[in-house]
């Protein structure tokens, strides 16, 4: 299945806070023709990005590597590690390793090729300056939105 098989566009929203903390954002995105799929960790998002095609990815900056983590094991790198993996760019030295993630589900296997250049929005209540500088150097389009998210601006950007 690819994103084009839907009559609407599909966004993958990766945030360990879950959809219950974004009902307004999801509601407005759906009114604007988007369908939102949710993932709560880097591992869960990797699995979905290997399996399905998306028109956009909304990515929380502080994200656990696995859903079983109740904290933010990778700290400010959590969401960004997913972005490096998605773009096929090795993460900078010092970033946590992701190779051991969900080995039974493909480990560090790449995403679907169609997802490589997908439009990505990083969201955070707080942007770590080091990480923000690193992601601004990444290939492809990456935008940063602060929480609470100005959802109309997000929709305009995705449009």
């Amino acid at each position, binding site marked *: 299945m690819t994103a084009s098989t839907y009559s609407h566009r599909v966004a993958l929203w990766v945030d360990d*806070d879950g959809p*219950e*903390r*974004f*009902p*307004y*954002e999801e*509601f407005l995105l759906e009114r604007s023709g988007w369908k939102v799929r949710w993932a*709560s*960790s880097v*591992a*869960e998002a990797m*699995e979905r990005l290997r399996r399905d095609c998306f028109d956009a990815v909304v990515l929380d900056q*502080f994200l656990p590597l*696995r*859903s*079983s983590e*109740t*904290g*933010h094991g990778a*700290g400010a790198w959590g969401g960004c590690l997913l972005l490096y993996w998605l773009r096929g760019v090795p993460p900078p030295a010092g970033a946590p390793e992701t190779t051991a993630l*969900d080995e039974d*589900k493909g480990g560090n296997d790449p995403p679907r090729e169609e997802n490589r250049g997908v439009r990505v929005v990083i969201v*955070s*209540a*707080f*942007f*770590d*300056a080091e990480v*923000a500088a690193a992601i601004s150097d990444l290939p492809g389009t990456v*935008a*940063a*939105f*602060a*929480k*609470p*998210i*100005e959802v109309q601006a997000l929709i305009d950007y995705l449009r």
Partner: protein
Amino acid sequence: LDQPPAEELKHVTERRLALVIAVGQYASETLQPLPSALEDARGLERVLGDAALGQFEIRPLINRAAHETIAAIEDFVAEARTADLLYVHFSCHGLKDVDGRLYFAASNTRTDRLFSTAISAATVNDLMIKARSRRRVLVLDCCYGGAFLKGVLPRRADRRVGVTERFSDGGGFVVITASDALQYVFEGTTVSGEATPSVFTKLLLAGIESGEADEDGDGWIGITELYRYVNKRIADELPVQRPEINNFRVQGEIFVAQSRNVSLQLPLSWEEARQGGSRQVSVGEGEVMLSIPAGIDDGDKRRYPGLGRPGSGSLLAGDLLVYFKVAPPPPSVALALERERFGRFRHAVLGPVQGLTSAARLLMILAEEAGVDQARLEPLIVRVEAEAEVLRLWRENQRLYYSANIEVRKRRQPLRPVLDRCTKRVMLLLREREVGLQLEWRCRENLHLSFDSHAIDLVLSNLLDNARRYCFSRTTVIVGVQLRGPKEIAISVEDVGHSGPEYLDSEDVGSKQLFVKSDSLRTISGQGLGLAMSAAIVKAHGGRLSYWSEPLAGTAGTDTLKSTPHRVRFTFTLPSAQRSSGANQ
């Protein structure tokens, strides 16, 4: 929902008492009037006494004679309890005798009779160190006498002894001086006409009022944060004046005020909404205010300047009117923020605020649509309540965390109303996750115990919130009450969900350093604060908090997380010394 006002938990921690001593008028012609001292006193009374800032009970002592001042200080320290925070502020002339001993000038001070007409620093020191309070702050905005020169008042310098050298004993004692012995202190630029506060006190007040002194953005202004703020700003305004700080046996930070930068108050509960009043949630520039549907009055407009402008709105959800104004900083601003700024409350607060504002905004949209299904509104209203409860607990736990010690006021009373109140409060939130709640009362229901109801309410709320967050959907949380031996009552909260972290000690949760008061707080989210505070409260009651878990057969969880479910139980005990308590098995 039924919850105790936050203020009622205050007694568990401390009283905040401030004695403001200001002398601007002097009988002796050799001492210049100090109109700025009275202005200082008014400012301190306004800022330190503000319920949203310093939260101090202020005792002003204006233009008093030396013996009256000494007596007032003695009364002040004698009445203090261990948990109290004492703040004493001098705004007056400072003088030294021929031996270099420091005195504070009173209204009757004669410069040639300091011993009998001025307030000896040694006496103040003795009184302060005798106070039972473990946390004492002394701020000396004083000088050594002199005359104005081009609008500034130079004070006599002396190399032999500095102000801070006099205050050298006693635990938990912080002394801040506007300057040391070798410097002058500067007042405002005029003697006559409009009085202005001294530069030092003016900056101190500005740091609290603006919230700029809250360096780490945790919502509290510590005395060392305040000192650093004043020190930095005074270097810009008057580079020659160098304030000093001395800490004597102070462990941790003494918090002198809450910060408006991170003003966090709680949304209304349904009961409160029905009874009137209003609360707000405010973080940075975004805020949500919940109020009864009484319309926006002028007071609201003053307090919430965004109301009525684009970007703000209101909605009626059930009996509750929600005003909101959400103004997130643009990404460019967010990118420039330093890590420290949002460190402590980032995950604890902004997540719930995100959830609360999102639900409130959607409620507004739906409420404006004709024929909206009430069933669609309910989950959003529950979400608002859930986030409000998370914020309430965070705030109460943080309040205790920042206290030097925890004191409980035990009173013999029935346990059942507290349990009912806590379980009722969490019921809706559990329903959101399709989780049931069962109360198993395994002893006589009119059980009376000696405990602090507000503190035990917080313990139970923390344990229930823990269960709510970590249990699996479609399970049941069980609250149990039973006798444990002849002298203990055990209250347990049990759920089926993720196992607890490995660091939990099975026998006594309080025996582990669950929550580390350091930078590590910034790298974790939501682990341990509630449990640590609960353990401390239970310990203060003479009981203990314990943890137990066992794996269950099968797996549960999401597609990507196949977790072994655990039966998890937190149990705390309370002493039940008398058999006449009514408890039986």
